[in-house]
């Protein structure tokens, strides 16, 4: 029972928290319809809101593979939901890296958990990949055909290959901040209620 290998129960837990994370992402994604600039602010919204389930998740499984599998699931679901395949390597890389970091702290060290969550949050940027790739060629095509680049819309202005590095850094920073907030919430509720 206490083996370090993932068991059926753990796979179920992973599935549940992946579902929760995707719901968080989609609810934040809804806001993106209001204005394209909000799309850029996913890097703040998702790490912070998503940190609450994530911090609970970190305390529930504590075995290597938990975050890696979650990232594979995210990649598969993003693909099936039409978000493209370009982000998959980034999602999985972020997941495996986050998993390794958390393992180095035996899933107990809070500092490592913060770092791990920060790294994991980089997956959010995978959502932008299709936009970035299109933005660059779209721009090119528009210029080629004589359109002024002014027509390039807000979305492409906020998210392109130049700003992606900033977005990645923001993701990481807010991932770390989110981890601290999420941990507080977990303490306030779940530890107090005796669930964790």
């Amino acid at each position: 029972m206490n083996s370090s290998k993932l068991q059926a129960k753990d796979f179920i837990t992973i599935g549940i928290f992946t579902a929760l994370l995707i719901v968080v992402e989609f609810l934040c994604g809804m806001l993106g319809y209001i204005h394209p600039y909000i799309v850029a602010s996913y890097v703040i919204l998702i790490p912070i809101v998503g940190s609450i389930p994530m911090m609970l998740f970190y305390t529930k499984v504590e075995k290597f593979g938990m975050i890696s599998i979650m990232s594979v699931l995210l990649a598969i679901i993003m693909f099936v939901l039409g978000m493209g395949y370009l982000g998959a390597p980034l999602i999985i890389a972020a997941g495996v890296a986050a998993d390794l970091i958390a393992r180095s702290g035996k899933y107990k060290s809070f500092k490592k958990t913060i770092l791990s969550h920060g790294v994991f949050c980089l997956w959010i940027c995978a959502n932008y990949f299709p936009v970035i790739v299109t933005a660059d060629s779209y721009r090119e095509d528009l210029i080629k055909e004589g359109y002024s680049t002014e027509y390039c819309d807000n979305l492409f202005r906020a998210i392109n290959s130049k700003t992606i590095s900033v977005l990645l850094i923001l993701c990481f920073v807010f991932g770390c901040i989110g981890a601290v907030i999420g941990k507080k919430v977990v303490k306030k509720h779940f530890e107090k209620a005796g669930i964790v």
Partner: protein
Amino acid sequence: MNEYSAVNEIKEQTDGSETMEKSRPVIEIRNVSFRYKGSSEGLLSDVSLSFQEGETVLLCGASGCGKTTILRLINGLIPHYYSGEMTGDVIVDGRNIRETELHDLAGTVGTVFQNPRSQFFSVDTDGEIVFGPENIGLSPKEILRRKDLVVSEMRIGTLLDRSLFELSGGEKQKIACASVSALLPKIILLDEPSSNLDWNAISDLRESIRRWKEQGKTILISEHRLWYVKDLIDRVLYLSDGDVKQEWNGEAFRNLSEEKVAELKLRPITLEEKYIRAFTDEKGAITASKKSEARNCRFDTDKAENGPSGKKVILSEFCFSYDRKRSGGHLRKCLKNGTIGECDGLQLCIPNLVLPEGKVIGVIGRNGTGKSTFLRCVCGLEKRCPGVITVDGKAYKGKERLKLTYMVMQDVNHQLFTDSVKAEVLLSMEKEDEKRCDEILSNLGLLPYKDKHPMALSGGQKQRVAIASAIAAGAKILLFDEPTSGLDYAHMKQVGQMLQNLARTGSTVLVSTHDPELLALCCDEVIHIESGRVL
């Protein structure tokens, strides 16, 4: 190991010509003590039990007496899933549970759990029935054969190819039974399977158990509701404080006096059945007995007006349809003419209803006949319902209803938001008033838990926290949706008393229930809803 092979040998010898006494027990619990991880008290202390093949045994006793724990010992969830300190051995079908992996037991022991919502794994019914056989790696052909067998046996053909999320609780429980059946286990455990079911669903459940019994399976049922299993059981074990205190055979148990049953703090064995006969005859065919019962229960406008307190709560124009398109025109037509015939296609049609203020009013009726819809409309959750509530001559409509009323939901976990009982109550107050908060909490006996997390409390305590927050918000009408489902006798009595207290302090309490004992215990009036109409 030698012993086990000996067991098998004996079994082979006695096969065919065995009598109950001679055959070795299929389940043996030997001197087991168990304590859950993190709890200070031992739950089972030195329990030894054995069950013969083909026996149907009922485990009863108050909540927390160890019924569920015994089932978990047999299906292996203890010690493999729920950890704790365990001594002693459990032998099931010749295998020591401690040394057997959980998934290896799947073909031997099947378990039906309490909550139909949380025990299915798939999204569709077909997938759920074949889930077990797929797990143990049977060939697709064999799985399909078993599926067809189970489907025809249980007559659930109409449920196939449906989403599990659109099924009723009773239908879900049927699928859960089918899913367990498909693994063809020798032993079937049922852990309070009727808690969330209405009477019709319970009689379906009884049919399933009867079928398993005919097939010679060993069946263990842990249950609070005794009436529906009483004719099926061969033996009854009464548990208390982690040990078996009394034992009867089926016949002796059926003949227990009502006083004796009450003394043991068990739910009545026969009462419920009497009651069901009075209320669940086929729709439309109002029998004599029903009529006479109904007269007592039916709500009379005149009577309320002449009632002792004189004050009343008037509900008017409570009509509603889930079908968005139909609701507009139908509602108007229905309201204008006010006759029931005009209201076809509405899930709820109560043009006028007068309730006495400060009383406990039971709301009864079969599942899916509009009880929940009625409650949702009264408390203003269904915006499209035009209903108006008049209290003390003041009319409340639309969103105002939300402030006037409060519903304690069947799953009370959904309505607790904060990190302490105190904060939960303060959240409901417009101006935080600690003194009043303490007062409310002490009235409900929650003061000792003031700083605890609501989710750390027991089910009954959570219910009271929800009530405390409703009182703090100044709700005058309190609604309860099945507050006693799954409770044992003592807890049900507690709830009944609490409802009466609430009414005495001036709240009007509406309680939807299937629990006849609760009705008898605390309800001053009863309204019977059928197809969204008050009978």
